């Protein structure tokens, strides 16, 4: 519609000028009139040339972005033609894997000849998940916006949105984690037992130094541990729920809290297509973030309840932190 409007507009402009040329019987005006008539031709040639020599890139500063925090999407164009592009209309979709939508975003860019242009678009994600950015359409318009040409060299890009680090929506209090009744974790640090004491070797973790004994012996001694997963915490997330975003928040918050307290844990969730529960042993923060990626990439499965029973049998005697959805809200409980 724009194109027709512009065409009519320019035609009227030309007709008026043509009439003035005829009316005023001026050679100068005729010269200018011819130039004006020829201008759309230049405009078309410029558009065609630029459309063939345009490349597009998409990026963000970081693949991992926090929920509710603005990130900048960079839409970069490189124009290798001799003509500047005054109006390149880019249509792109931004979609969270858990919240599909058909919304389009349209941005108009101008790109210098033999140069680059980068549009920085602020995006504030309000849900966790994997975000896909898909360039739907790149349309190069001519100078008068009468002709257009599509550029098929489109590209996709994705990034992750994880819960905000500050938020801690876990309902389980610290005291509960240490509770004798709950038997959530063993009393040993990091979910392991002390296997023995030995002299300090360069490279040993400082937190493993037995400070009391070292003080007594006047020498640095470190504690040696042996893994005992049987007694580590189990965090089971039931993702198939309308409150999936809240559940992810809770899982992430709980996970961070456990790691902060020094307890490794096993994150278990059911993914569609897998009969077995996906179990990830998490001992540090990067592991937690990587596990989020697995959650985002998994399609939630309905068989979580069955998995819960199987899990309980498997970890008999240990407590399980069970995070699931109740209507539109996430609930955390110890089972």
């Amino acid at each position, binding site marked *: 519609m724009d194109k027709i409007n512009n065409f009519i507009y320019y035609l009227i402009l030309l007709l008026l000028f043509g009439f003035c040329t005829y009316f005023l019987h001026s050679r100068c005006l005729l010269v200018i009139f011819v130039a*004006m008539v020829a201008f759309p031709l230049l405009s078309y040639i410029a558009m065609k040339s630029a459309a063939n020599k345009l490349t597009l890139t998409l990026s963000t500063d970081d693949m991992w972005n926090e929920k509710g925090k603005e990130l900048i999407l960079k839409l970069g164009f490189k124009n290798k033609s001799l003509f500047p592009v*005054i109006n390149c209309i880019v249509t792109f979709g931004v979609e969270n894997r858990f919240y599909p939508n058909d919304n389009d975003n349209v941005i*108009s860019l101008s790109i*210098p000849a033999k140069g680059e242009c980068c549009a920085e678009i602020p995006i504030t994600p*309000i849900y966790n998940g994997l975000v896909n950015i898909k360039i739907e359409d790149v349309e190069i318009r001519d100078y008068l916006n009468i002709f257009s040409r599509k550029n098929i060299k489109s590209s996709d890009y994705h990034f992750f949105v994880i819960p905000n680090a500050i938020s801690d929506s876990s309902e389980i209090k610290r005291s509960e984690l240490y509770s004798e009744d709950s038997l959530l974790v063993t009393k040993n640090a990091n979910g392991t037992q002390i296997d023995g004491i030995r002299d300090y070797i360069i490279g040993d973790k400082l937190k493993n130094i037995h400070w009391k004994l070292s003080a007594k012996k006047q020498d640095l001694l470190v504690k040696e541990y042996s893994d005992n997963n049987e007694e580590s915490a189990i965090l089971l997330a039931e993702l198939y729920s309308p409150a999936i975003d809240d559940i992810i928040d809770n899982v992430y918050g709980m996970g961070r809290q456990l790691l902060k307290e020094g307890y490794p844990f096993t994150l278990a969730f059911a993914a569609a297509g897998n009969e077995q529960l996906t179990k990830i042993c998490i001992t540090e923060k990067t592991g937690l973030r990587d596990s989020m990626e697995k959650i985002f990439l998994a399609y939630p499965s309905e068989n979580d309840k069955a998995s819960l029973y199987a899990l309980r049998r498997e970890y008999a005697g240990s407590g399980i932190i069970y995070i699931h959805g109740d209507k539109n809200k996430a609930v955390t409980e110890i089972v």
Partner: protein
Amino acid sequence: MKTLKKIIVLFSKRARLKFKKDDSKRTGFIIGESLKQKNNYALLNLLTRSLIVLLITLGTLDGFMSAFNIEYDMVSVFSAIILVNIIIMLSQINPMLRLLLYALIIWKAIEYYSVNADVMRSGINALTNMMYDLVRVKFKLPEVSGFEEIITDRSFTVPTVLISWGILMLVFFWESCGRSMNIILTSIFSFMVPAMGLYFDGEPELLPLICLTSAWLIMASVKFNGKQRFDISAKKQQHIIQWGNSQYIGRLINGKAFIQFAMLIIVFISCMAGFVDAIITQETYNANVPESEIKSDTDIAVRDLMIIGFSKYKNFEIKGSISNGQLGQYSSVSLDYEPDLEITYLPSTFEREYLKTFVGTDYSSSGWETNAGICDLGITNKTAAEAKNAGQPFNKMRIKSVGLSVKTPFLPYYTDISTVPEMKYINDVSFEKKFVQGDEYELIYYREPDVKIDDSGYKDEIYNKYLGVPDENREKITQLCSEQGWEKDDPELEEKIADYFEKNFKYTLKPGLVPWHTDFVNYFLFENKEGLCAHFATAGTLIYRCLGIPARYVEGYALDYPLVMDEQKILEEEDPQNWYNGTSPLSPRPVTVELNDFSAHGWVEIYKDGYGWVPVELTPGADKLDVNDNKKPDEKLSDLVVDYFMFAGKNEGEKQEKIERIKNDTSEMVLYAVIGIVCVLILVAFLKTAKILLKHIKRLIVFSKKNSDSVIAMYGYIMDILLYSKKLNGISHKDMSKALAAYMRSPDIVVQTVEEILYSPEKPGSDVCENTFISLHGALEKILAECGFVEKIRILTKL
């Protein structure tokens, strides 16, 4: 329905925000909300916009100047405008700064104009006069004195005006195109200025038009690609439009791309224009492109309008005096009554004497032309020579130019050219030497030589050359001659033609314009029938020629005895014999008289076989001369006001005099205004009084009935009075009862009766009503008695 809802939502800001919030919940994103533009390209953007504004301003200015072919100091004007453009460009960064700068520019412009009014006025007048030169050439208009330029140095005044104009245009174009890219407004304003010159067949240079076109195309492109933001104030860059499922994100146009694009357009238009210019030469164009018929049609109207417009200004009216044969290109003639010639002679006849200067030999619709070299002076000189030989009385005349310069010297009929050796002649209508202001010469002439001459050597040539009439005139005039019964050999032909003019035509100095492409004589003879001496003389010449009598159109000055005697200065010391040797002197001594525009004249000269050229007077009223017409008439108030404003500061003495006269006239006007106002006031007072009286008469009529209506009317009237005099607090019947208690014994009964009349289905009887009315009437009298005179008047007028 959903779409409709969305559309409605778009129009409500509040709803739009809600919609956006809801939508982000659905999609999981808020996109572009805090979009902030990087100002990396702000300067380039600004520079490009500044370039567009500069192109338009300079293109408009130079287009105008080159179209009117006016030369000016381009370097100074352009430098000043570029400098101011840079300042305005920098002020665009802050809106407040911008406004302050605009205010400063306008203030300074007004200040400069008021302080240097003469410079500006002279510059504007110079431009107008130079524009008129082009208009004059196109429409073949007469040369006029033009608007006065108090400061005559155009190299100073014109650039000053152009710089001021350019700066004001800069402000306008920065707002109309620099900021909002309003292509319609900008292109109309920028095109109209050079188009004025184009209309009058001026051909501007190509460069300013290239500038204009480039700027228009840049603007059109930016406007058409409207999704690009063009606003430089980057702090508020949020420019997001939600439409359906799409969200449009606006952003600042890339400065580098923008300037590249602008340059590309300039280069393209320049190359194309240069190429086409080389191909289509002016000759090719003229040969192949016919002139617009529409324009030819409008030309007539425009020309007439322009001349009418110009003729409204005193300076653009054609002056009296010698027009050198120009005809019909003026609507009126003004006389300045300033002396042109100083003539010294001894009057010897009551008849009009002629001093001829211009002789028109060939007629065309635009005027008379003198084709020199047709016949030599012999035919004229021969009569004088014969008279001299016959010893006929001669007259001597001294002619001095005091305010006039003409191509041909003034000569009375039958001048002995040998007495004026410095006036070397070429032939009988052309002289080698011009007669300019300050020139003076003496000559001998024979006023009424009663001699015959041998004209056999010239006669054929005269008959060949002085009988020419354009075809379009000949047919009509011949028909007129036959209708009127004019014949060549009629001895009373001159009287008959003069009589015809006298009866059917009107002499006026404001004959109006001759419509374009209309023959002057045909229009005068058959349509307008109004004109001045030039009209009558021209028409008479063609009539004589159609009848087969050689005739010429002559311009010069007429010496009328009554005027001479009215204005004369007698030279007591001069010997009259040296000035006139005849027997009938009309003055004992020679006299000196000053002739002004009033005596300028045009007449017909016909050839009489064996006698030579003889003047013929056909202008009506020539024999009914009023000497008072020779005086300058009193100026009208409007003329004085115009003169005051147009010539302010020129001459303090004159100015003061004019101010005094305006003041006198103004006080007269004030008196009339006061009388008018008083009359209006009296009328208003009369109408007001009539209205009050009518109201009271109506009330009295109602009161006279003494029925229930009378009671209610009286009750209401008393209530109004009490309220007006603030004796009633509240407007209920209870309040009224309390208020009436002071003026009657039983107010409760009265109030009760009123209530019954108003509200009860059973109305009280007539006797009750009458009694109540009487009680109320008594109360009214008591209330009025309490009031003072002024209050009574106020009550009577207000209620």
